[in-house]
């Protein structure tokens, strides 16, 4: 059991993993006895999927944390901008152009404050971490898909990527050979 297991999330993860692993071990022999050939993979697959789901909890917590911070930054800026607009509103002349003038002030203040936010280090940092957490979740989801794809004897995303890479390199080599071919003919 890890040292941080007193934290609720880690404890939950530990308990879940403990039972998943133990059940997997306990059921290993009876399943092996009753299953024929490749069907044995199903139990392994279930374990892999369970592990991915459990591990994705960390990523989900991190993602929610960063997302909450993202919305907090937006709502804080909104509230601050609205305060500035409210402070300026009484000075707008009350004539037929009042609505247009109010709109202009509102847009200018909001535009300025939000641009400052988007340009700030704190926004950039949190946004980068938010995307990173989202990618972590995507990766977990992909790992789960890969288990299913493998069980169906279909290529995984990683295997397809290897094919794309190979094709890309082949295309490059062919293009290079085609460019060199007229030169080779000349030398002949």
């Amino acid at each position, binding site marked *: 059991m890890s040292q941080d297991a007193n934290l609720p999330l880690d404890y939950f993860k530990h308990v879940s993993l403990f039972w998943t692993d133990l059940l997997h071990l306990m059921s290993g022999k009876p399943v092996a006895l009753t299953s024929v050939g490749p069907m044995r993979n199903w139990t392994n697959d279930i374990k892999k999927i369970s592990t991915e789901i459990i591990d994705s909890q960390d990523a989900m917590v991190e993602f929610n944390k960063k997302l909450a911070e993202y919305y907090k930054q937006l709502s804080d800026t909104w509230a601050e901008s609205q305060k500035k607009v409210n402070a300026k509103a009484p000075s707008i002349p009350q004539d037929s152009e009042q609505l247009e003038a109010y709109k202009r002030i509102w847009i200018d203040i909001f535009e300025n404050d939000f641009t400052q936010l*988007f340009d700030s280090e704190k926004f950039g940092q949190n946004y980068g971490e938010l995307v990173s957490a989202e990618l972590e979740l995507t990766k977990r989801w992909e790992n789960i898909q890969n288990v299913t794809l493998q069980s169906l004897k279909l290529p995984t995303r990683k295997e397809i990527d290897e094919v794309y890479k190979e094709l890309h390199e082949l295309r490059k080599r062919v293009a290079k050979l085609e460019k060199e071919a007229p030169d080779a003919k000349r030398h002949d």
Partner: protein
Amino acid sequence: MQSDTIDPKLIQEFLSFTKNVADAPKLVPAPDEITLESSPYDVAYECDKVRLLHFKPIVETKAKFPLVISYAIINRYHILDISPKKSWVRKMLEGGIDVYMIDWGNPSNIDKYLDFDDYVNSYMDNCVEFVKKETESKSISIQGYCTGGTIATIYASLHPHKVKNLIATAPVIDGWKDTTVVSNVAKHVNVDKLVDTIGNMPPEFMYYCFSILKPFEQGLEKYYKFFKNIHDKEFVDIFLRVEKWLSETPPIPGELFKQWIRDIYQENLLVQNKMFVGGKQIDLKKITMPIFVQTAVGDHLVSPECSMPLYYAVGSQDKTLRVYPTGHVGMIASAFSQKQVLPELIQWLKER
């Protein structure tokens, strides 16, 4: 003392606005019903998903060298030919320039390993070689817009003998000096993880970047103006064309995106002559041909501070820098670009 009555002018304006909203579908086409093709062209050359478009001449060719335009890797080339009255291409043709345009196409998953080497040393070089052969020219003029300007700059550095003149319009050069919110996002994204996880950079990510550029002006005010001016045919036509163009962003090949963000925005290698493309180091001092750098003071996608260092970094003796009082799109597709930016550029090209 505050008046208790509502100004009748306000009520009238509100009623007129709501009527415009109700009438809009009867007056204007849906974006999907609009075709963005404007000036006629032939597809002169094709390689994978890349096409080289050759625009049909309007007048007799007056410039000595054909021009190849390297469009950006974000959005499609249509903005340079958005409507007859605001077409960059058409004005060039009217000025007697023989215009070719590289359409980078719509990359799909299979293209995720395409990188700067492929774009510069394969696609662009193939297009240049094709134009040289077809027009029997020893070298050609190249114009690059936005990220297409970065590609054109790298090309000119690696193949200077093939480029007669270089025009860099809002090129992305010095990522550390860029003051836009896009560069702030770019600097903080773990681009290796992004590309390894999702492959090509999806359009949605780019739409997010667009959404933080002037969100209230671009997200609210411009649509208010659209409905307010719904009876102005010319305004509505250009508005819808630009909107449609904005909404058609192709994905960016993963490796190209990774290199672009890391080498230019995060590590700023290009302007320091430390960037490698196809195993070769990019030395901007090797750009010795005449160069025209165009930037816009109101550019909120590529700030002038990001583009201008190119002017100082190149080895050219004959160099021109212009900072126009407009924006990123205004520089290429506006009444201002037709009146000032293009005549100046056409004259510059003819003199060379």
